[in-house]
């Protein structure tokens, strides 16, 4: 409970700082070259790692559902729909 509030407060403060950094120091943020590429790749690399870790430690039902979710995500780009598709496949396989 306390931990959750701490994370909310710190994530709010940190996210606000990131947004303001772009406004005040935007001209110093690299837009081309290796540093810019590396910076841009951080969020995507992290999400891919999250998907990999959770799929790798899941069961066969989750691997299949992960494939189904990837197909729905690619075609629709819709987050809730992707979640529902993944959930339904897991539910069907575990019944």
């Amino acid at each position: 409970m306390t931990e959750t509030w701490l994370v909310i407060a710190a994530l709010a403060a940190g996210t606000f700082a990131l947004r303001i950094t772009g406004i005040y120091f935007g001209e110093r943020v690299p837009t081309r070259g290796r540093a810019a590429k590396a910076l841009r790749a951080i969020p995507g690399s992290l999400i891919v790692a999250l998907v990999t870790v959770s799929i790798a430690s899941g069961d066969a039902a989750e691997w299949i559902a992960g494939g189904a979710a990837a197909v729905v995500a690619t075609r629709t780009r819709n987050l809730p729909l992707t979640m529902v598709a993944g959930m339904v496949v897991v539910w069907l396989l575990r019944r």
Partner: protein
Amino acid sequence: MYGLAFGVLATQAEMDGIQVGVMGTLVFAGASQIVAVERLIAEAGAWVALGAGLALNLRLVLITASIRDVFAGRPRWQRLLGGHLSTDENWALLLAKRADGGTAGFHYLVGAGAAVLAAWTTSTVAGVYLANLVPEPRSIGLDFTFTAAFIAIARSLWTGRADLTPWITSAAIAGAATVVLNWDASWALLAGGITGSLAAGIASDD
């Protein structure tokens, strides 16, 4: 709908409507909220939840930097307000309007941002109440929804072939760390994220 989805996910971390509402209003960055909440559920600790959420939000620096002309000559309170309200959606709307030859500036950004914030906070809190109607989350596959949400977020972050090298690197390293080395999930995430980012820098040819 995205908001409803977050509300449902947050209840798995035993968050109530107030926490979800405060988080939505003050953090106001959906993907990072999902990632941080998932790390809390995994009992990875507050630092890991915070670090993962902030790493995902690094792209907000690039977003506000790319529209900093909107804030030129504005007083500080307007910069702070507009900064907080800058998000993927109204940033894309602003650029689209300009590409169409329209004029869109500070008021357009703040107006659209306030609308997105109101919708986001309302729908995430509604999601908490929706989730409370579901009796047995695990039995209907709700535990898999985070993985599915990450897959959807990955799709939204994909910008083209240049992402292939960092993403394959990240998946290979995070996968090997988990399966072969039996690393704790949080360390595997860190290793995947860092090596993916480095691979993008190294593979760059300009």
